[in-house]
């Protein structure tokens, strides 16, 4: 098991919690939560971008950066 595949599982589980009525506008397109999950599972460019966003967030959450003042 690689760190990447672990992260992929975590991200998929997080995205699966998004309800169906939410859509994301990112880049030049709009996606449903199911499409986000598929993109991460398939490792598409969008999926990798989402993984990067989630990894940055989880790192900042772990370091406490998100609670720091400006």
């Amino acid at each position, binding site marked *: 098991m690689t760190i990447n595949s672990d992260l992929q599982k975590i991200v998929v589980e*997080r*995205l699966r*919690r*998004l*309800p169906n*009525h*939410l*859509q*994301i*506008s*990112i*880049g*030049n*397109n*709009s996606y449903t939560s199911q499409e986000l999950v598929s993109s991460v599972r398939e490792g598409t460019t969008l999926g990798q*971008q989402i993984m990067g*966003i*989630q990894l*940055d*967030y*989880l790192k*900042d959450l772990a370091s406490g950066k*998100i609670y720091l003042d*400006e």
Partner: protein
Amino acid sequence: MSNSILVTRPNYDITTNYLYYWTEQIISFSQKRNITTYDLYGAKATRTNLESYNTKRRPKTIFLNGHGSSDVITGQDDEEIINNADKDLSRYQNCIFYARSCQSANNLGVTLVDHGASAFIGYTEDFIFFRNENYSTKPLKDPIAKHFLDPSNLVMTTLIKGNSVKEADKRSKRSMKNNFLKLLTSTSSTDEREIASFLWSNINAQVVIGDDRASIT
């Protein structure tokens, strides 16, 4: 150079439709303060109009909404209205830009400032927002999109009030951070908690290039 604002807000897909309507608030706010506001909306959001209005009206502030990349911001129907490779970017000398567009702070913003623009507020990554599809026909009432678009509007309202670019960036980020922390609280529904990480991305991606003391007045 006049103390006026030039706005582009194309409207041809769901993303630009949301930005189109959320930008109306800025136009109203600006007009209420008696600031001349040139509104290039929908099919008027073209390169020809942007350049023409800039040349003839010399607005101090340019607020661009639309799709983009590191090098380009688009107008109606994906027309490139400004490109990092344009030879005459010095036409925007002394302007303050806010680009609600993906990634344009990477190259385009830097080049504009190199060519004499006062300041550029934009994003080094994609500008992201979530929306509730049940509100597609009434974007301004979308409570999910509000978490993302209210703080970005704050960049412009802070500038219009005469504050500096630095203050506009600071207030916008503070508002994003407040929304972010609210989303993480236990009072938020599960769906709202999960979108917080994407708001965090916008906070980190918003940057100021150039003179952060610049202001409209």
